[in-house]
């Protein structure tokens, strides 16, 4: 696998779309390319952020935040 192919596979990897046999080859290439590979994979995670931002925000109930903050408070006190 050359680095361009690795880049294509990295984008599939971060969204979890690699099939098991591809994943094995991807991990071998990841080891071969070392830091360069890790840097590129980190950049690909920007896709996650973009996909979330592409959606129109949804409203959640006020009670959710109240429950959350009560749980956090209880956890801090325990």
């Amino acid at each position, binding site marked *: 696998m050359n680095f361009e192919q690795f880049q*294509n596979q990295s*984008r*599939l990897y971060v*969204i*979890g*779309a*690699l*099939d098991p046999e591809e994943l094995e080859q991807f991990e071998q290439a990841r080891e071969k390319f070392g830091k360069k590979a890790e840097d590129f994979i*980190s950049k*690909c*995670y*920007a*896709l*996650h*952020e*973009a*996909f*979330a*931002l*592409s*959606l*129109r*925000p*949804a*409203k*959640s*109930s006020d009670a*959710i*935040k109240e*429950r*959350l*903050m009560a*749980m*956090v*408070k209880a*956890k*801090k006190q325990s």
Partner: protein
Amino acid sequence: MAPALEPGAPSDFELMKGIQAGDADALSQLYDRYNGILKALILRVIHNEAEADDLLQEIFMEIWNQAKNFSEQKGKPLGWMVTLARRRAIDGLRKKQAYARAEERLQNETEQQPEAWVHNATEEEIVLGDTRVLIRKVISSLPPAQQQAIDLAFFRGMSQREIAAKTNTPLGTVKTRLELGLKKIYDGLKDLKDEL
């Protein structure tokens, strides 16, 4: 790439540092800033309002509990939160019986009127020059088949084989659609960063 902040508002990194130090107010602010985005992501995966609310609460609790594992070197807080939320939502979808119901709902939506991944921007969003509008533009510029393949992979957690089976498309075609679509979005985001 995160939405613009009010002048003087703490950055996401500052809020994460606050959470790591046990500051509940920092979590409250982070919740106010991103609950809408994370809820939309969860809803896109599980298609159930009440379950999405419960999961949203669990995810923010996990953010509180796991904040120590967040590292600035590994990326931005929003990216970390989205990765966490997506994983939890897909896990939840697979584990619960709701999977079958959501599958049925998705099937019905697909057959009747496919729910678009990206929607047209509202007037308010356009006026604000929201980054989200630009991201939607990049995504909506893809051919529908590429959008669908990415949608099923990212929001439904499907492998390429599963997408091929679901859409009655040859595996090689699914691979090509995903590779081309993701590359275009990735390159579009790079251009977007250069502009901002």
